[in-house]
C-alpha cells in the first residue's frame, strides 16, 4: 500500500475509475449482484474454456447456482473492451484444458483485490521493459502450458486477430515489445490472481496470445520497412508505418503510370510498320544475305558479319551491361558519322529500330 502513496494521485484515481467502469460493464453482462464477485470478474475472472472451471469458480464462492457461460457470450467477451478481453484471453491462454479446479478454489476474493491494488501501482511505476519482475513462481510453472493454451486460443478467438494464425510462442517471447496504447489494458490484465501465469513480460503490452503473434508479425513487417527505405526514394525521414505505406503506394502508382505513358508513347512513335520490321529483322538475323542489308552501304557491312557471328540473341544482350543509355549514344553516332556500330552497345530492339531507320537515311546518301 505504501507504493500507492508514492504514486501520483491521478493514477490512483484513474485506476479506481477504471475499476468502477469495469464493474458497470460487468453488470451489463452478468447478473452477479455480489460486489466481491464483480471485483473478481473485473480483475481476474478467467473465462474458462471449459465450463467446469467457470462453474468451479462460481461455486467456490457464495455457492451460487451453476452458470454456464453462453459460448456466444464468450465471443462477445472477446470482442468487448480491449483491455478486458485481453485480460480474459490471457487467462484463457494460461489455463490448460481441464484445468485443475483447485487453482480456482484456492483464491479468495480478498487476495485478488489486494493483489489488484498492490500489483498495479508497482506495474505503473515499473519501466515498460521491466515487468518480468512481477512473474511469480507459480506463474512460471504454468508457462509451459501456455503454448498448449495458445493453440486453443487461436481457434476460439479468431475475431481478435485477423492475421495471426496458429502462432505458438512461449510466454517469454511475449515480452518482446511495447504497446503504448494498451496502458489501460495492462492495468487490468496484469492484475491477476497470483497463481495464473503472467505471460506478458512487458508492461503496456496487450496480453492476448493473438496480440503476441501480431507483435511478432509487426516486427517482421518493420524489418521489411527498412528495405523499403532504401528502395523508395525520399523515405529516409519517414518512420511511421502509415507514412511508409503512403510512400510505397505513391511510388507504385507513379511507376505504373509511367509504364502506361511509355507504352502509349511507343505506340504513337512506332507505327505498325516497325513491328513488321522487327519481324523482318528477326528473320534476317539468321539469313545473312538479304536485300535490305545490301542497301545499307559499307557502314553496315562491318558490323553485320560481326553481328552474325553472334549466334544467339544472348550475346547481343550482354551489351546491356554497358547500359542502354550508351545505346542511344551509339545511335546518335551512327547517324552523324557512319562508322562501324559496336554491337556491344546495342540490344536487339535498338537494332530493329536502327535497321528500319538507317536504310532510308543511307539511301538518301
Amino acid at each position, binding site marked *: 500500500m505504501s507504493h500507492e502513496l508514492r504514486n501520483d494521485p491521478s493514477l490512483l484515481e484513474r485506476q479506481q475509475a477504471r475499476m468502477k*467502469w469495469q464493474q458497470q460493464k460487468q453488470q451489463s453482462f452478468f447478473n452477479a449482484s455480489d460486489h466481491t464477485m464483480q471485483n473478481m470478474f473485473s480483475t481476474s475472472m478467467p473465462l474458462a474454456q471449459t465450463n467446469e472451471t467457470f462453474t468451479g469458480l462460481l461455486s467456490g464462492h457464495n455457492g451460487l447456482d451453476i452458470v454456464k457461460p453462453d459460448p456466444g457470450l464468450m465471443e462477445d467477451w*472477446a470482442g468487448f473492451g480491449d483491455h478486458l478481453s485481453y485480460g480474459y484471453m490471457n487467462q484463457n491462454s494460461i489455463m490448460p484444458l481441464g484445468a485443475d479446479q483447485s487453482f480456482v478454489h484456492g483464491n479468495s476474493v480478498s487476495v485478488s483485490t489486494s493483489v489488484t491494488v498492490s500489483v498495479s501501482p508497482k506495474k505503473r511505476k515499473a519501466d515498460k521493459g521491466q515487468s518480468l519482475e512481477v512473474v511469480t513462481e507459480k506463474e512460471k510453472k504454468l508457462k509451459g502450458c501456455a503454448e498448449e493454451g495458445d493453440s486453443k486460443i487461436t481457434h476460439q478467438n479468431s475475431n481478435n486477430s485477423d492475421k495471426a494464425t496458429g502462432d505458438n510462442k512461449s510466454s517469454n517471447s511475449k515480452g518482446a515489445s511495447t504497446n503504448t496504447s494498451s496502458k*489501460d489494458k495492462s492495468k487490468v490484465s496484469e492484475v491477476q490472481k497470483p497463481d495464473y501465469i503472467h505471460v506478458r513480460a512487458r508492461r503496456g503490452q496487450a496480453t492476448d496470445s493473438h496480440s503476441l503473434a501480431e507483435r511478432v508479425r509487426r516486427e517482421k513487417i518493420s524489418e521489411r520497412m527498412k528495405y523499403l527505405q532504401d528502395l523508395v526514394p525520399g523515405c529516409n525521414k519517414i518512420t511511421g508505418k*502509415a507514412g511508409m505505406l503512403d510512400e510505397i503506394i505513391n511510388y507504385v502508382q507513379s511507376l505504373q503510370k509511367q509504364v502506361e505513358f511509355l507504352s502509349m508513347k*511507343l505506340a504513337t512513335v512506332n507505327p505498325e510498320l516497325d513491328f513488321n520490321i522487327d519481324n523482318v529483322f528477326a528473320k534476317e538475323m539468321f539469313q545473312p544475305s538479304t536485300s535490305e542489308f545490301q542497301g545499307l552501304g559499307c557502314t553496315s557491312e562491318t558490323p553485320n558479319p560481326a553481328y552474325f557471328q553472334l549466334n544467339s540473341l544472348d550475346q547481343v544482350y550482354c551489351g546491356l551491361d554497358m547500359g542502354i543509355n550508351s545505346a542511344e549514344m551509339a*545511335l546518335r553516332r551512327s547517324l552523324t558519322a557512319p562508322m562501324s556500330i559496336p554491337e556491344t552497345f546495342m540490344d536487339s530492339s535498338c537494332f530493329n529500330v536502327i535497321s528500319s531507320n538507317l536504310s532510308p537515311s543511307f539511301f538518301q546518301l
Partner: protein
Amino acid sequence: MHTSSKQLKKEFIKKWVKGLEICCSSNKKMDVMERKKKIKLCADIALASAKNATTSWSNALIYNAKKDDENAILVDNLLGPESRFNSQRTAHQMITFHKRVRSKRILKKSCTVSQRMKKASPPASNLATCIAKRLVKKRTQVLKKLVPGGEAMDEYSLIKEALDYILSLRVQVDVMRSLANATEVLD
C-alpha cells in the same frame, strides 16, 4: 541486387520483343489505343514471366491476363512450353482466398454487438492509435489493389511482394523509357 536487375532486364527484353513479334505477326490494322494495349500487355507478361514463377504477384498477373480470352493465346505463346507458371495453383489460391474472405465476413457480422460496445467508449489514450490503425488499414487496402494478386496475401507477404514488384516495375520503366528515347532520337 544489381546483377539480378541486369538479369531481369535481359529476360524482360527478350520476352517483350518476342511478344511484340507475336503480336504483329497477326498483320491486323491496329489503332493507337490497341497498339498501346498490346505493348503494355506484352511488357507486363514479359516482366512477369521473367520472374519465372518465383513470386506471387507475377503468377497473379499472368493468371489475370489469361482470364481474358483474346489474350490467352498470346500469353501462352509468349510463355512457351518451358514456363513454370502453374495456373491451377494460382486458381486454387484465388479460391481459398475468396473462401477466407467470406468466412471473415460472417464472423464479423456475428460480432457486431461487441463492436458497437467497443465504439461506444474508447479511452482517450487509445484514440491516436485507433486513428493510426485505421490509416494503416486503409493504406494496406489500397496497396492490395495496386499489387497484382495482393488481395489474397496477408500483410507481411504483401509488403514483400510490393518490394519485389517495385523493383520489377523499375526495370520495366527503365527499359521502356530507353527504347522510347532511342526511337525519339532516330525520328
